């Protein structure tokens, strides 16, 4: 039996690569078909929801009962950025304020101080010594998060923001059991050296 001519070997190799190519193309086609079907279903379902007046995402022109959804004017881009910065500063401050660890008193205090200025900074500095002593003695740990923050009023150099936080506090007095702690706070912010800092912080009774 004579060996197969080179041409035939080439043909067989190319046939194999053709088969591999076709199989790969077939698999890709099946995958794409599945994706198209899936995305169409998801998109269509979402569309149905949005068209439903009950949906919170009902679009412009949708009758929601009591009125037809209509768009309002948009603020200038600079105003949008300013509001975002004011809200973020308030959230960051409250996040620092409700997270306190007696094992890192300095770090916890500095996180608040670095976001403070004016009246609030003076008050906080004055209380720092007592805070350290109390926290270490009570072995106090406070963990929390900002639920929502809302801008009450704001302009180019000042803003008033209200914040609600939710968290826990644990210390010797609670037998280190975590007790729920919610804070409703109003913050006064001022723009200083391009940074929004807290000038006053009051709980809302």
């Amino acid at each position, binding site marked *: 039996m004579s060996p197969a001519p080179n*041409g*035939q070997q*080439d*043909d067989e190799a190319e046939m194999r*690569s*053709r*088969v591999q190519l*076709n199989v790969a*193309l077939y698999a*890709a*086609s099946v995958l*794409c*078909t599945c*994706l*198209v079907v899936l995305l*169409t279903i998801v998109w269509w379902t*979402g569309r149905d929801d*949005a068209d439903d*007046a009950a949906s*919170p*995402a009902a*679009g*412009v022109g949708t009758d*929601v*009962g*009591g*009125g*037809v*959804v*209509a*768009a*309002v*004017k*948009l*603020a200038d881009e600079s105003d*949008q950025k300013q*509001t*975002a910065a004011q*809200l973020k500063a308030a959230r960051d401050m409250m996040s620092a304020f409700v997270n306190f660890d007696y094992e890192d008193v300095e770090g916890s205090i500095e996180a608040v101080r670095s976001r403070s200025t004016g009246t609030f900074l003076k008050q906080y500095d004055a209380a720092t010594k007592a805070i350290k002593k109390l926290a270490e003695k009570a072995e106090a740990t406070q963990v929390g998060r900002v*639920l*929502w*923050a*809302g*801008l*009450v009023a704001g302009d180019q150099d000042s803003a*008033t*923001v*209200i914040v*609600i936080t*939710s*968290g*826990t506090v644990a210390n010797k007095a609670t037998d280190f*059991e*975590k*007790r*729920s702690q919610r804070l*409703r706070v*109003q913050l006064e912010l001022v723009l200083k050296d391009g940074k929004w800092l807290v000038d006053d912080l009051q709980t*809302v*009774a």
Partner: protein
Amino acid sequence: MSTPGPRRPSTSRGGVQRPRKIAGAPAGRAEEKNPADRLAKPGSQRPDKREKGNKGDQGAEPDAPRAGRDSTRAERAAASALLTSARTTRILTATLGVLALLLAGLAVVWAVDSRADDGPGARDDRPVVADTLAVQAGVDAAAKAAEAMSSIDYKKYDANVDAAAKLLTSSFAKKYRDTAEEVKKEYMDLKTVVRAPVVAQGVVSASSTRLQALVFLNQDTYRVRAGEPERVVTQYAMLVTMVHTDNGWLVSEVDSDLKKETPGATESTPPDDKK
């Protein structure tokens, strides 16, 4: 223009006379070289099969099983012919192209649709994009509605519920009325009067059609339990979602901090006196 004789295999397009190069083989030789192609050709000569059929032991087999095996071999060969075919490659490539176009189209439609639904939307990095005056009107409406929904006097129960429902979208009004109906008996039995003045309000986010307002309320509840007057004060926060309509801002959803779990806490929050 047609060629007489047996139908050409799937490697040929109708009416095309010129033999096509398959898998790199020189034109005119490919069909001869590929036994699968020959098998796929009905009525064509199949010398390899005849050889097998002429072997002594196979010749003794009954006709039916042999026919079955022949048929299976033919099917395998047909599948093999399909996989080695250049035409299959072209068809699959075209199919894949069409599917890719469909996917791209879907992505575009999806993106356009989501933008159109809510107009220029509020994002995490730009939570408030609506105009200040519109936002102020929306937050005021949210505070008014939050107070109306929470302040109920058992003597004017239905009138209070009706008044509050006018500030809501129809779907949310239905939910509100359903809840009000569920707690009505308790309100009547305990002669409950709830006042919930707003103590602070602000905007959390605002797109061109939607707004979320944060409202702080101090709820004062008076009731008579077992003949004894009782007063409960609850301070809480409400997140009110508003939708802007041609009739002003309407409430489409509400949430409260009292509904939020505090992970790991062993002590619950004060009693919720909300309806």
